[in-house]
């Protein structure tokens, strides 16, 4: 029996971005880049681990918006078109760099990565990566969980209980309808928890969730085992706390592994480095420079000067960083003094898109960590929350403290002078959605009023995505976030009034259904 457990959690989420009203759309690339650079490498790593007999090595949260997008034929087709364009660029890059001993191997590396993406995405899984993740869960390699429907930041929606309930229920229903089984646990958007939320989590069928470290450490009563064991809320829903030490080793800009000078630099990209005439065919509008994914330099150091990327050196650093992580995990477990009931546990959650997209070597590192831990399970064994709870179901009862994993540890990143204007509208719309659902909930499924109700709920959920408030604060793509919030609130308002007036323009409704084609099985009654 191991001395303790390590639980690695990846949370994969992207906002719902789908713009059939445009021939191409820059922000759709967020999904395409994540597929090529994160999800496909992750699937390949997990398949290798499955071949080695590894079980319960990862908990993967797939957000309902991401699930929907990965299953969307429109976006699947656009992704293949995106890949085709990049493969043409790769061929050109292989030719362009063939006499350059530093860059030629890198061009071939990216060419190979793109060919692999086509193989996995199209030929292997018929464009449906959910099949791959579902199979990995069926084989016991990982545990899949999900999050709130559009990743709404629940602590700031809590003034309207129906809004929080709908976020959770629609999320749970979407997961089940797309993956064929319910999720046992939930990743709270941005780790945002407030006391009382556990009642709605139970209602949505979840048996556990995660909080940031101080959510557990400031729990009431005081947690006897600190972060080294989950707590159980009085209603029986378990809470796992994020370990700050292992988080810092991956997240920290200064101390984290991804900042190693031998790793690939994210920002130096041929989309900005090469002549516009050469790169123009691969720009969305033929004018605006964007990241292409072809990055030939390593971080090198803090200055502007960069040296060519050397994958072999990076691989050596991956091995060293994996060793370091595993060693520290074992030390952390050993420091618990051999306690066995409940067994010590380290929970290390990360954003999935960090691995591969931002940190190019991330998937290799993750695979190396898992392989090392799996090789010596007698010290620290890998586990998933469900597997851990199966062994340790009797835990200290306590209610976590309000918390998030955002800057400052609470709600400030999603509520500040840069984005506070959205909350009066979000709360008001939630109240009106509840009233609308109660007043018109008897509409027959499939009828125009029912469809309008469904679409109004979709618009409201999409407006509530935490991503928009986050982007408004962080400053990148700010205009897009403002527009999305504005558009969804306006669509909700339009649909609400149409239902109230009894006058529904079917063509307009169809247009909104085409544009916001998310949560097809949504039942407006979740707002009643």
């Amino acid at each position, binding site marked *: *029996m191991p001395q303790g457990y390590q639980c690695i959690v990846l949370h994969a989420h992207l906002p719902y971005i789908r713009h*059939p*009203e445009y021939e191409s759309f820059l922000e759709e690339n967020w999904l395409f880049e994540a597929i090529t650079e994160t999800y496909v490498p992750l699937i390949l790593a997990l398949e290798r681990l499955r071949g080695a007999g590894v*079980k319960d090595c990862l908990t993967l949260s797939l957000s309902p918006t991401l699930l929907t997008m990965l299953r969307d034929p429109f976006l699947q087709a656009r992704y293949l078109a995106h890949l085709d364009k990049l493969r043409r660029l790769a061929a050109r890059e292989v030719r362009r760099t063939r006499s350059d001993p530093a860059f030629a191997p890198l061009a071939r590396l990216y060419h190979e990565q793109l060919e692999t993406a086509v193989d996995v995405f199209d030929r292997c899984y018929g464009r449906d990566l959910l099949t791959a993740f579902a199979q990995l*869960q*069926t084989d*016991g390699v990982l*545990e899949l969980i999900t999050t709130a429907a559009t990743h709404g930041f629940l602590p*700031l929606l809590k003034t309207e209980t129906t809004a929080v309930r709908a976020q959770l229920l629609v999320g749970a229903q979407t997961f089940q309808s797309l993956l064929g*089984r319910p999720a*046992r646990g939930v990743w709270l958007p941005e780790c945002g928890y*407030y*006391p009382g939320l556990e009642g709605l989590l139970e209602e949505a069928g979840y*048996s556990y969730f995660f909080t940031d470290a101080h959510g557990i450490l*400031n729990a*009431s*009563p*005081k947690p*006897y085992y600190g972060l080294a064991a989950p707590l*159980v809320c009085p209603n*029986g829903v*378990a809470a796992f706390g994020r370990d700050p030490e292992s988080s810092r080793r991956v997240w920290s800009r200064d101390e984290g592994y991804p900042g190693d000078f031998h790793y690939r630099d994210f920002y130096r990209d041929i989309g900005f480095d090469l002549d516009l005439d050469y790169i123009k065919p691969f720009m969305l509008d033929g004018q605006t420079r964007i990241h292409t994914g072809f990055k030939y330099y390593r971080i090198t150091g803090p200055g502007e000067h960069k040296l060519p990327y050397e994958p072999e050196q990076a691989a050596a650093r991956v091995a060293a960083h994996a060793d370091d992580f595993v060693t520290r995990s074992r030390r952390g477990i050993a420091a618990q003094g*051999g306690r*066995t009931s409940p067994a010590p546990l380290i929970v290390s959650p990360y954003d999935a898109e960090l691995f591969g997209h931002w940190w190019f070597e991330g998937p290799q590192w993750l695979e190396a960590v898992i392989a090392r831990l799996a090789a010596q399970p007698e010290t620290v064994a890998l586990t998933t929350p*469900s*597997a851990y*709870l*199966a*062994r340790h179901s*009797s835990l*200290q*009862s306590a209610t976590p*403290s*309000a*918390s998030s994993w955002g800057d400052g540890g*609470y*709600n*400030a990143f999603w509520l500040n002078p840069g984005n*506070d204007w959205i*909350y*009066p*509208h979000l709360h*008001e*719309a939630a109240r009106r959605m509840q009233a609308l659902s109660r007043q018109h909930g008897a*509409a027959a499924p*499939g009828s*125009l*009023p029912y469809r309008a109700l469904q679409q109004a709920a979709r618009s409201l959920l999409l407006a509530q995505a935490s991503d928009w408030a986050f982007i408004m604060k962080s400053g990148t793509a700010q205009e897009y976030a403002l527009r999305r919030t504005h558009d969804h609130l*306006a*669509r909700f308002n*339009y649909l*609400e009034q149409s239902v109230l007036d*009894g*006058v529904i*323009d*079917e*063509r*307009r409704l169809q*247009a*909104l259904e085409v544009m916001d084609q998310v949560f097809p099985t949504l039942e407006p009654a979740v707002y009643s």
Partner: protein
Amino acid sequence: MKKPNPKLPGMHAAGRHTMARTAGAAGRRSTQPGKVRPAPAPFSAAELRQISEQISAAWFPPMAANRLTLLDIDPWRLHAYWHVAAQDLAAARASLAGGGRDARLVLRFTDLSPRLPGAQPHEHFDIEVEQRHNNWYLDLWRDAKHYVAELGLRAADGDFIALVRSNEVVTPRAGPSPELDFRQIEVRSPRALPDHGSGPEPNQRDSLLRDLFPKRLQPGEDYPLIIPAPGAAGLEEPAFPALDELNDVDAAHRVQVSSAPDRARDAEKASTGAEFPVIQAAEIDPYRALARRAKARMLAGIESRLPPVAADTVSPTDLELLPLPLPIPAASEVGIGSNGDHGKTPLLRPPARTGSALAGQQRIPLEAMLGSTFFSPGRGASPVQASADILISGRGTLDRPLLLFGEQVALAADGSFKLQLPLERGPELAALLHQLRERYEDGDDG
């Protein structure tokens, strides 16, 4: 929002349908459930863009109802936003003396946090705000506070007219909770994972239980894990060694060494129906009484030093024990320094090999208790060390094995058994009691 539905330019005339407001009325156009809805005529990207832009331009929602909302940002900061119709504000102002010319718009915060006995409840403070801002950020001086607010007009003479009342908000705690109650409960979900083999296999469950207390599962080493019931044929030691034996470290050690159970023999006896004596309740009762009183003393000592705790944070077991009288323990009661006849097994005894003991009427210091109980892990070194044993007895069904921590327990012919285990300091005290009880209660008939 009761905005009239405008006729928007560019509307697709053929797609507009009018419905009656009542369900089922003539004029409603709806798709029958179960029928396949005909696919809409294809949209061009331009048409989609046009519809999207028209709706966004004309339908951004205004605020309608009067409302004041509080949101917690962090332990020391609140955000308030509000909407009050201009006519409502004007009417309120007009109702004040002098037309309310000097009245100020204020947010009146009321502190609903639990207060000390005798303190004035519901203290409040005002923040002057401006209507045109419609929101405010408020810095606080304490965490974990409970507030409600009203937006209203405060006249120069102090009169206050509330326009709208907020929701209640509780700011987060910024540090550890003072509550120290420790209770274990079960996670809500089923324990098994039906879909893949990550959960423990049935034949591994014993080893999982065994792992709970590995130090006690090394037969024949430090301590007799399982002591057969007294009078078992072929066994030399009684199930409950005499008190003087246990108070004598060396004697206790001898017992430990020599009382390693012969499980094969026990199993054979059990299977052949060899007779074990029935354990009488009277044999156990003195120990139970002693345990209850010791725990009551411990809880009372701790309670006097801890901040008040709500009744619902105390476990049912503790509530049962708290009302008991709290005499200063005599050495004879705790089996220390005396061969009193309260029982043969001490619940508190001097630490092995140090030989130190508590004198007759000496009160056990609170720090000693805190240092050796689950209430305060990791506190400083204690001047007194305490150890305890637990006695377990019961009855099982002979045709099914009875396992305790993965070890099979030898049963008497009538299914009875009796065990003695050491308790160690620290958190395992509570966990062991719980696990034993749960396992015990989960047993077949025990």
